[in-house]
């Protein structure tokens, strides 16, 4: 049955059309960066509007599958769209300094960001494993190029490492798809769900191997340990103006895909994959926390911290269906924190440079009170202190994992949370208690990072104090 509804594909059409239009106008007229900004802004706003429309129409309903079961329009995909396009908008605002510093290649940068956003939303909306693979590649390949967009040595290294390891992970993921297909005879997630729900496999080895490879492939994309080795080098080498978008986007897209794949088609095998997910989660939390302590570059520190956060989010997935709300809350609020933190990094060490040593944050409280307050807030939120979204998110994932019976994993994660406070608070100590080295003048902050930090800070505090609107919304954001 070929059921075509262009609302399901609307957000992708909006951002892709904006990207195509932008490149064509660029080669025809060579407009100023302001024109790129308008086109991208209208495209993202349209995509966001279509996602909200999809939310109003699609939430809470049963399987709305379109294009021969390729795409789902449900609360899950619509909420994913809202998160992805909000993030893309804030990410572009935060990194606009990078766009202008790239001169004419800035148009390619903006177009790639738009195409990556389309890929990320497709990852949340795919209802077929091959569609999911294509979505993953659309987002990933854009990410590889974005990581190396400045074409200096560090960025080249980051892009090449990201590309080689990412291509390997994609191959692993594809192998997983092949094995799951071999075991179930269909690529449609709805088909797999009904097949695995009705059939007892006498020898489930092929299916279990497939599930393991799917977890490895997507675990790489969300930088869960032990598949995290690319993250520090990519975060550090990629220009700061785009690192926040890369980091947050990979997390949102990856966890959306992981949540749907594990809880829709493979739900019947929860007891088999949940222990593996718990082990990966604990490994990520421990490795991320321990290695973050040893970093003296804030981007590497944030990279290892993102490994730990991937672990926290994975904890919620051990609960299967019941953990999806916690996953969404954590990943959407964490994505905002990351974009906010990297907006400050871009303001401090320049949007087009890679490294950002911790020493350059000494005395930031005096040089730029607003940026220091914003980064301080993000550090507190990532550490999981109450009155921020980080606390509510951690509460949600811990509760989901305890309900699923993984008390040992939660205890380990709690200990790691306390240890993690060390390196989050160290940044705050640097900013407020150390004197700036040399003759550090007041930091000039562009409007882009200021807006991005303001929006993300406001969201982090407001949703940290009053998370109920988002939590109520998430009740409808379940996969079909």
């Amino acid at each position, binding site marked *: 049955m070929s059921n*075509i509804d262009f609302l399901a594909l609307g957000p992708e059409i909006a951002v892709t059309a904006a990207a*195509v239009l932008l*490149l*064509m106008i660029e*080669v*025809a007229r060579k407009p100023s960066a302001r024109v790129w900004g308008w086109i991208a802004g209208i495209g993202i706003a349209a995509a966001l509007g279509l996602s909200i429309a999809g939310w109003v129409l699609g939430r809470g309903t049963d399987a709305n599958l379109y294009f021969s079961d390729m795409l789902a329009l449900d609360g899950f995909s619509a909420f994913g769209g809202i998160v992805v396009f909000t993030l893309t908008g804030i990410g572009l605002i935060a990194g606009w300094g990078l766009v202008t510093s790239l*001169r*004419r290649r800035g148009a390619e940068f903006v177009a790639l960001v738009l195409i990556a956003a389309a890929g990320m939303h497709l990852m949340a909306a795919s209802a077929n494993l091959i569609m999911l693979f294509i979505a993953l590649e659309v987002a990933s390949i854009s990410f590889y190029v974005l990581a190396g967009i400045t074409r200096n040595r560090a960025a080249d290294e980051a892009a090449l490492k990201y590309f080689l390891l990412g291509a390997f992970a994609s191959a692993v993921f594809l192998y997983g798809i092949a094995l799951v297909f*071999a075991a179930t*005879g269909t690529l449609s997630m709805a088909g797999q769900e009904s097949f695995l729900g009705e059939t007892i496999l006498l020898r489930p080895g092929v299916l279990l191997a497939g599930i393991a490879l799917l977890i490895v492939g997507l675990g790489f994309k969300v930088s869960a340990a032990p598949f995290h080795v690319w993250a520090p080098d990519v975060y550090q080498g990629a220009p700061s103006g785009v690192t926040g978008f890369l980091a947050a986007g990979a997390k949102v897209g990856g966890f959306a895909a992981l949540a749907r794949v594990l809880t829709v088609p493979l739900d019947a095998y929860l007891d088999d994959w949940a222990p593996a997910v718990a082990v990966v989660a604990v490994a990520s939390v421990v490795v991320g926390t321990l290695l973050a302590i040893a970093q003296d570059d804030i981007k590497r520190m944030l990279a290892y911290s993102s490994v730990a956060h991937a672990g926290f989010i994975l904890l919620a997935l051990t609960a299967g269906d019941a953990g999806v709300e916690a996953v969404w809350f954590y990943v959407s609020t964490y994505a905002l924190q990351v974009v906010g933190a990297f907006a400050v990094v871009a303001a401090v060490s320049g949007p087009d440079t890679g490294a950002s040593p911790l020493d350059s944050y000494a005395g930031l409280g005096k040089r730029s009170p607003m940026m220091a307050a914003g980064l301080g807030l993000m550090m507190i939120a990532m550490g999981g202190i109450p009155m921020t979204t980080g606390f509510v998110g951690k509460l949600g994932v811990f509760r989901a994992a305890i309900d699923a019976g993984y008390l040992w994993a939660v205890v380990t994660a709690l200990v790691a949370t306390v240890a993690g406070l060390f390196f989050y608070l160290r940044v705050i100590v640097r900013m407020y208690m150390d004197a700036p080295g040399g003759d550090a003048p007041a930091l000039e902050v562009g409007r882009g990072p200021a807006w991005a930090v303001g929006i993300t800070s406001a969201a982090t505090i407001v949703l940290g104090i009053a998370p109920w609107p988002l939590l109520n919304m998430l009740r409808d954001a379940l996969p079909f």
Partner: protein
Amino acid sequence: MALVDYLPIAIMFALALVFAVVSLLLSRLIAPHDPTPEKLEPYECGIVPLQDPVQRFPVRFYLVAMLFVIFDIEIVFLFAWAVQFEALGWPGTIAVGVFTLLLVETLVYAWRRGALDWNIPHRERYRRVVAPEIEEAA
């Protein structure tokens, strides 16, 4: 589908392996081995090669290869559409039209950015468009 159904493929693999190994071994055992300096030359008569044939070639060929991929992909999808032309009807035609337009867009972008400019320093557009950007970047 049971694992036994894949047996023909396994047999095919085994046959291919056996054939390759046996023919290589046989020729090694049977063939006479009597090298002379003339026999080891690339050409027994003709010009003696002066340099390694593996050498650097202009990086512009890489762009041509990428442009080739655009048309290659187009053919792959157009063929699938063409054999089902009747069944797909107007929606199919429109979908393929959009697809082709997106590919044309890629080509236009690459073209306008100078991917097809050969012998570029002599071209007028190179001086006007590409050279200022290289200077800007430097």
